[in-house]
């Protein structure tokens, strides 16, 4: 069959097709080749028509497309060949890509009878559709799916990591929405507080009901502070709850406040964690540190006290030996002097042991106080008289000023006397020569906000070397002495500790003030009743 015999009206019909159409006769020769194919193959109808399939497409001989064509021509079997299972067979390229981009092809082969055109040959028509766009869409979909899956995988991994971290930290998460005032917890939070998630009607209420009574207000205040203070961005507080086993459990809450682009607060996202173990560890650590400090100060005290004990003992032993050696030859005055020194050292030793005994009694709470009404002014005057001789030795004057008419207090006479004597003795010890110690009795306050309970303040001021600011608080600690003690003033470092214990047992307060070059002032306040 020649190309001239092929009906022109069908040729022109194929011309209008928006797909590739060619027709093969029984001998596999081209009898039609449409314009769409010309544009995409670079082969004109004139170049193709009359040629055999294998001439034009030698590479496709005996390939699936060729077998399908043969089956159609022989048995009238139609075929569909998609580019999903086959590579696009025909060398057709997208226009304007200079033969670079191959067209993805979907091919349909159907038998064709052209009896009406007096063509008796069995023919087949091959229709090639460009599915490049569809394939690109599918590729894009595939990419999207892969990226989505990758992102999901990464998110899942992060979520798992977070969950693992939360489990390891015995923590749960929560979220609070400002707009709806809704509080949401994750499963771990419910587990942490042992609240039944399914039957929980009001989460806020259930949560608050677990608060340890002493901490309930604190938590409420924290919440109010967060809700009322627009500038808060970080939340960090700790509180206690009573857990299901009726034990105290510490909860640590840390959260951040999220804001929208306008800067308005939208929600709070945070973590709540069981910090009972940490708290216990902290307490143990504190106790350990305190025990170590106590141990250290006791060691220091022992070193100090042994020195203090040895000094008078050396005095006693030294002068006793001297007396033994010289009692036959030395004159009476000398011997008398030895006895005096032995007695003095003995007194000092006794005083030291008395202090130790007092302190141990006070520490053990075994010191019984004998409270009765006494005039603080009288007690002070007696103490001054007792110390006057010692003061005079260093040409130190003692002045008592009384700015209130009534100075009656309920106290243990002996113990308060001990306090004043100690303070006065210290003041003499640390005073420079030819200076005056001032004792002032004024109205005092037990604490600045308490205007109801009347109290009397006793202030003992000297004009000595003073106390370094850093030691003002520690001078009252047990076994601690001011560094200025090293100047030779001596003492066990127990006097002020005993004073503090006594004043504490009178529900009073004792403290020290010092200004460089102006000496030190020791104040104590005790209630009148």
């Amino acid at each position, binding site marked *: 069959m020649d190309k001239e015999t092929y009906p022109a009206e069908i040729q022109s019909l194929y011309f209008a097709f928006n797909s590739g159409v060619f027709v093969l006769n029984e001998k596999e020769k081209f009898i039609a080749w449409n314009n769409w194919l010309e544009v995409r193959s670079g082969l004109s109808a004139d170049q193709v028509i009359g040629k055999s399939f294998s001439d034009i497409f030698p590479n496709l001989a005996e390939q*699936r497309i060729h*077998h399908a064509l043969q*089956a159609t021509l*022989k*048995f*009238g*079997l*139609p*075929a*569909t*060949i*998609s580019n*999903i*299972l*086959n590579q696009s067979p025909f060398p057709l390229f997208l226009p304007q890509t200079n033969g670079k981009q191959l067209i993805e092809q*979907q091919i*349909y082969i*159907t*038998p064709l009878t052209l009896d009406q055109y007096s063509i008796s040959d069995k023919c087949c028509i091959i229709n090639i559709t460009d599915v490049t766009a569809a394939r690109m869409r*599918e590729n894009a*979909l*595939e990419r999207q*799916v*892969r990226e989505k*899956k990758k992102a999901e995988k990464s998110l899942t991994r992060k979520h798992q990591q977070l969950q693992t971290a939360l489990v390891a930290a015995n923590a749960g998460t929560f979220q609070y929405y400002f707009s709806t005032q809704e509080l949401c917890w994750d499963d771990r939070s419910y587990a942490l507080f042992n609240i039944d998630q399914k039957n929980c009607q009001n989460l806020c209420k259930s949560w608050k009901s677990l608060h340890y009574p002493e901490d309930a207000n604190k938590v409420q205040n924290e919440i109010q502070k967060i809700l009322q203070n627009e500038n808060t961005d970080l939340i960090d507080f700790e509180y206690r709850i009573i857990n299901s086993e009726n034990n105290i459990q510490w909860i640590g809450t840390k959260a951040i406040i999220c804001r929208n682009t306008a800067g308005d607060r939208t929600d709070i996202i945070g973590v709540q964690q069981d910090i009972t173990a940490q708290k216990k560890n902290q307490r143990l650590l504190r106790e350990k540190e305190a025990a170590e400090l106590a141990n250290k100060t006791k060691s220091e005290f022992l070193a100090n006290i042994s020195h203090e004990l040895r000094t008078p003992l050396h005095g006693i032993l030294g002068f006793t030996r001297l007396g033994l050696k010289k009692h036959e030859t030395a004159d009476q005055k000398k011997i008398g002097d030895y006895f005096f020194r032995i007695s003095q050292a003995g007194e000092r030793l006794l005083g030291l042991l008395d202090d130790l005994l007092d302190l141990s009694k006070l520490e053990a709470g075994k010191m019984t106080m004998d409270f009765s009404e006494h005039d603080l002014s009288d007690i002070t005057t007696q103490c001054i008289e007792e110390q006057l001789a010692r003061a005079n030795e260093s040409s130190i004057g003692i002045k008592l000023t009384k700015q209130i008419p009534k100075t009656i207090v309920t106290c243990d006479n002996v113990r308060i006397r001990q306090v004043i004597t100690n303070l006065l003795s210290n003041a003499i010890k640390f005073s420079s020569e030819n200076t005056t110690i001032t004792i002032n009795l004024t109205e005092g306050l037990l604490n600045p906000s308490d205007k109801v309970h009347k109290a009397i303040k006793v202030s003992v001021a000297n004009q000595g070397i003073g106390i370094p600011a850093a030691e003002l608080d520690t001078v009252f600690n047990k076994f601690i002495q001011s560094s200025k003690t090293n100047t030779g003033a001596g003492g066990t470092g127990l006097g002020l500790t005993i004073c503090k214990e006594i004043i504490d047992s009178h529900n009073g307060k004792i403290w020290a003030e010092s200004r460089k070059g102006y000496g030190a002032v020791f104040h104590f306040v005790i209630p009148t009743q």
Partner: protein
Amino acid sequence: MPTIIPNLSEMEHDLLTELFNIGIGGAANSLSQLVNQEILLSIPSLQFKTSNQVIDQLGKNKKLFTIAQEMEGPFTMQSLLIFNPEDGFEVVKRMLGPHLSDETLAELQSEALTEIGNIVLNACIAVISEALGEGFNIDLPIFSTTTPEDLLVKNADSESDCLLAVEVKLELKESAINGCLLFIFNTDSTENLQQTLASLLDNLQ
């Protein structure tokens, strides 16, 4: 409902079985080339069944993937390749490779299955058509998702309901995937088929 056995002689029955056997052998060959892996197709078993029997066998209301090609000539035959969706998807997955996501495979599966059906069905039809020496008009394959009821009620002749069911097990080497080939004739077609087979046998003898 009792099975209506059309009046096929033993010889006619054997001839038809052999024709399908040859056809399916060709189908296996074509498919193996296409997917470049070994595909096993079992020996076809021929049974005449009622629509209800086939519906029961395929599973009532069960979702099916079908690829259908109709053949018109001395008799009319609807040829079908049937997969359950899971197996159909698995066939596509194994043929297109594991590198594609399930989403993309779902997009491509109708096109891929249409071509697979076309190859398998063409192979069978070609043998029958050639052996019988008759001219047939054969349609392009059509893929659809359907149920056994929709599939068979549409094709069944309610008066004397009878189907020629040719079952073939299609198996990919690495995993058993069951497919089913079904050829449906209406009553007139069965008679015509029988006549055609009889005349073929006469010619052979």
